[in-house]
Structures are given as C-alpha cells and as structure tokens.
C-alpha cells in the first residue's frame, strides 16, 4: 500500500495542475485581471503583464503532464514548486495590503487570487498552496513510481 503513495500524490498533483492550467488557458482575460489586481507588474510595456496569462497555464499543464508521466519530472516539479513559492508570496503580500487598506482581519480576507477557483478565503488558499508546494518538492525528491514499485516484494 505504501508503494502506491508516490503514485497517488503524483496523480493528484497532476490532476490539480492540469485542471488549473486548462481553466486559465480557456479564460486568459479573467486571469489577466487577477494578475493586474496584484499591482506588482507594470502595465507598460504591456507584454510584461500580458505574457503571464499566456505562459502560466502552459507551465501548469506541462508540469502536470511531466509529473504524471515522469518525463523531466524532477525539473518540472522544481520549477512548479519555485513558481508556487513566488505566487503564494504575492497572494500573501496582496492580503496584507488589503488588510491595511480595509482594516479587515486576516482570516476574513477574500479575493480572486487568479488561482483558477474564483474568490477564495485567503488563509485557506495559503494553506492549500503550501500543501501544493510540499507536493511539488515531494514529486521532485521521490524516487519515482517505477523505482518504488521495483523495490516491492515480487509475487508468484
């Protein structure tokens, strides 16, 4: 049973990344508005902001496929993990700015973080993203399903 845990984690991570990626790819405008709301990237020159919604969904889809198939798995998981750390930092930053502007307490802060799930409660999103980051680094460090399976006792 323990040997199936890496496979389960990889499938779950891949499913999440693929669903987020395809949702953003389908609606780049909503994602662009979400990124713009962070007020972290300048709108001039425009490509600095506009390239994000064109490339980030593909990053998620490619990472999902690589983590699932094992092709460039460690590299994809590391790139995705690093990206998630940056993005989660940006979410935290925006939450703190909103707290400062609106006087709301941290656990009440809610906005569309551009994560592909609409308006969310931010502290829950931060916990979820932390789990995703751990998942990415687990996928980077684990020996792989095939090698894990090859160490299982042979039957018959």
């Amino acid at each position: 049973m323990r040997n199936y845990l890496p496979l389960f984690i990889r499938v779950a991570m891949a499913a999440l990344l693929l669903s987020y990626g395809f949702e953003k790819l389908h609606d780049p405008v909503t994602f662009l508005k979400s990124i713009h709301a962070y007020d972290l990237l300048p709108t001039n020159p425009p490509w600095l902001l506009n390239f994000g919604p064109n490339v980030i969904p593909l990053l998620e889809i490619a990472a999902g496929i690589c983590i699932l198939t094992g092709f460039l798995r460690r590299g994809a998981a590391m790139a995705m993990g690093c990206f998630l750390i940056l993005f989660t930092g940006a979410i935290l930053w925006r939450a703190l700015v909103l707290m400062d502007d609106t006087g709301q307490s941290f656990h009440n802060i809610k906005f569309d973080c551009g994560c592909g799930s609409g308006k969310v409660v931010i502290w829950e999103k931060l916990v979820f993203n932390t789990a995703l980051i751990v998942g990415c680094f687990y996928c980077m460090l684990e020996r792989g399903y095939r090698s894990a399976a090859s160490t299982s006792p042979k039957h018959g």
Partner: protein
Amino acid sequence: MPSSTLVQTAVFAVGVLLLGLLNSFVNPSALDLGNDYFPANPAAVVVSGEPLEHGYATTSYADLFSYLDLLYEEPPFVVVLDARSAEHYAAGHIPGAFLLDQFHQDRYIDALLPTLKQAAMVVVYCTGGDCEDSIFLSNSLVYHYGMDKDSISIFEGGVALWEEQGSPLKEGSAR
C-alpha cells in the same frame, strides 16, 4: 541537489517559455503581448486599494432608462456600450447596447467607431460593483481612438444595478 535536477529544471523552464511564446503568436484567443489592456487616464489620481478615479461623467439608472427609446435613432444621439465579453453580452445586456469587449476591442472597433463619433453621448457600462472594464474602455476610446472625453459617461451601477432595479435584460447577440 543533483545537478541533473537543475539541468532538467532549466530545460523545462526554457521549453515552457518557448511554448508561451508560441501560444502568444499562434493561439487567436491568447492575449496580444503588445496591447495595453489597462490604459491609464493621465488625469486620474490612482490611490492603492481605492476604487479607480475615472474622471468621466456618470449616468444614473433613471437617466439611462430614459434613453432607451433613443438608442435606435439614426443618426444616434446616445450610444450605449457594453464593455464585457461576448459571452456575458449574450447572457443578458441592456437593450439597445452595442458590444465592445474591452479585451477584444479589435473585433468591434472599426465597425463601431463611425457611430460612436456621430453620437452626442456614449454611455459605457460593465458588470458593476468593482468591475473596471468600463473605465479602461473609456480611457481607450479617448486616448487611443481620439474620442471627446466630454461625450463619454459611465453607468457605474452596470448590469448589477440594472437587474436590481427590475429592468429587463436582452439575451442573445443582437442589440
């Protein structure tokens, strides 16, 4: 950390960047890298966390409702523009409003610009609430297409207020 992991990461990152560039230039629904989707109003004062100061005149619900009978006049006196997407427009728009999706202006602007320049007043709306598409569309009309700033007015309540007042929305792609 094994160097092969770093090499894999670099290969993956370069591959994704190339895919992103390919997507930008080949996929028709991808964003145009050179398009400024959030044109600024040089006269507006931007305060972080505050609603965008737009500096345009505003139209009330009662005024907009009273314009409904004028929207089909030729030449037009009042033109109403819906700054939302085609999907939102088809789901329900203010009767008589033209679709001018702020994020796909190039699809509509050439056909609409002569009509807009004839009109004495152009009312722009979007969803309402914290939606800013009507402001960015107005900035675009003034600073990219040379329309008179004083002819533009924003219906800040948007579709949300229109519905809240019990007024009917028109479904489909026709005005």
